[in-house]
């Protein structure tokens, strides 16, 4: 990252090649549109190029930082109502509608870390998993989720908290390793 900060394009390309796939996958999971996902990732990486100096390795891996930028950009796009009609796209079925990106699922699924995160998520009680997915991938606020599910906001926040606490137990140190 230091070399990126110093304006070395080649170093930036290395960072891009290393993390663009997972960044695109996150953006696509969130918005369900290839073009929109590409715009979000492009915007995020250009932001990284301009503000790489703000990356602090003590606060997490480069991948976590890149993904947090992508996540925030996607949520910004949602909250500008740019893609409001495409949110909540379930993960299942995306591959069928994805025409061009090269699917590397088989390859990636070999990775223990990916399997472990998925397994932990699936093992959550459905109501906890739902609020977590609506919040993280759907970009909805707790108030919006409360309205959607006709629940008190406190219940929604409580489910988020319980769900994340269980994920933390299930993943243990793995949460750090996967990034």
């Amino acid at each position, binding site marked *: 990252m230091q070399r990126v900060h110093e304006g070395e394009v080649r170093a930036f390309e290395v960072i*891009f090649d290393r993390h663009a796939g997972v960044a695109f*996958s996150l953006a696509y*999971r969130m918005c369900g549109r290839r073009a929109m996902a*590409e715009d979000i990732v492009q915007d995020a990486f250009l932001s990284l190029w301009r503000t790489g100096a703000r990356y602090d390795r003590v606060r997490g891996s480069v991948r976590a930082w890149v993904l947090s930028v992508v*996540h*925030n950009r996607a949520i910004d796009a949602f909250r500008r109502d740019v893609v409001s009609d495409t949110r909540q796209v379930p993960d299942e079925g995306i591959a069928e509608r994805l025409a061009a*990106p090269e699917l590397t699922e088989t390859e990636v699924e070999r990775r223990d870390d990916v399997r472990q995160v998925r397994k932990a998520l699936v093992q959550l009680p459905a109501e906890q998993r739902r609020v977590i997915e609506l919040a993280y991938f759907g970009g909805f606020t707790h108030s919006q989720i409360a309205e959607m599910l006709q629940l008190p906001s406190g219940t929604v926040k409580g489910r*988020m908290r319980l769900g994340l606490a269980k994920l*933390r137990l299930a993943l243990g140190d*793995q949460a750090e390793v996967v990034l």
Partner: protein
Amino acid sequence: MTGGHSMSEQRDCHGDAAAYALGALEPEEVEEFRRHLASCVVCRDELAAFQQVADSLPMSASQYEAPRGLRRRVVRAVRAQQAAASERPARALRSPIPIRQLAIAAAAVVVVGLALVAGIELGSGGSGTRLIPAVIGSADVRLSGGHGELIVHRLAPPPPGQIYQLWLQHGHQSPSPTCTLFSVTSAGGADVGLPGDLHGVRAVLVTAEPAGGTQVPTHAPVIEAQLT
């Protein structure tokens, strides 16, 4: 909250750390929670744990390679920005309209105007961070030594196809373009690092420009912060 903490920690914050880590707090709650974090070690610890878990969630999504066209576009844009940045020192910047006139002409279209109560001295030995309150508008300049950040609040997003560009004005010269292009969050917020050494910089300006930025301002400034 634990009993030994200050009054600011008495707020019922349990649950907010999880919602914050997931990006699910309302914009106004985000600021409140951040302030609360400064004084609540319980929430800080909880957030650190939850953030790590939230950061692992992207790995649960189906994984794809990034489209090749995306890589080409991003790298091309980065090279263009680098080339533009390296050209700038050798290039005399000419603004078709003096910035002061721009600012006056902008009165009707200014989204946020920023003026500072007092001048800021950027001494070489300066240290610490000073928060400069705005008289009108909602933007702050934080200065630490010769470096700074522009913190923007409640600024409307740039028009479609445009982006905000940061300009630095040295003395009475025309403002110099910077590579810093930014948009704002849905709440109108942005945290923009001021590039380079700010010694000699008299004003920081922000204009809406075509995506990719320009060498010459084409719009009136929406933010003008006088530093000295």
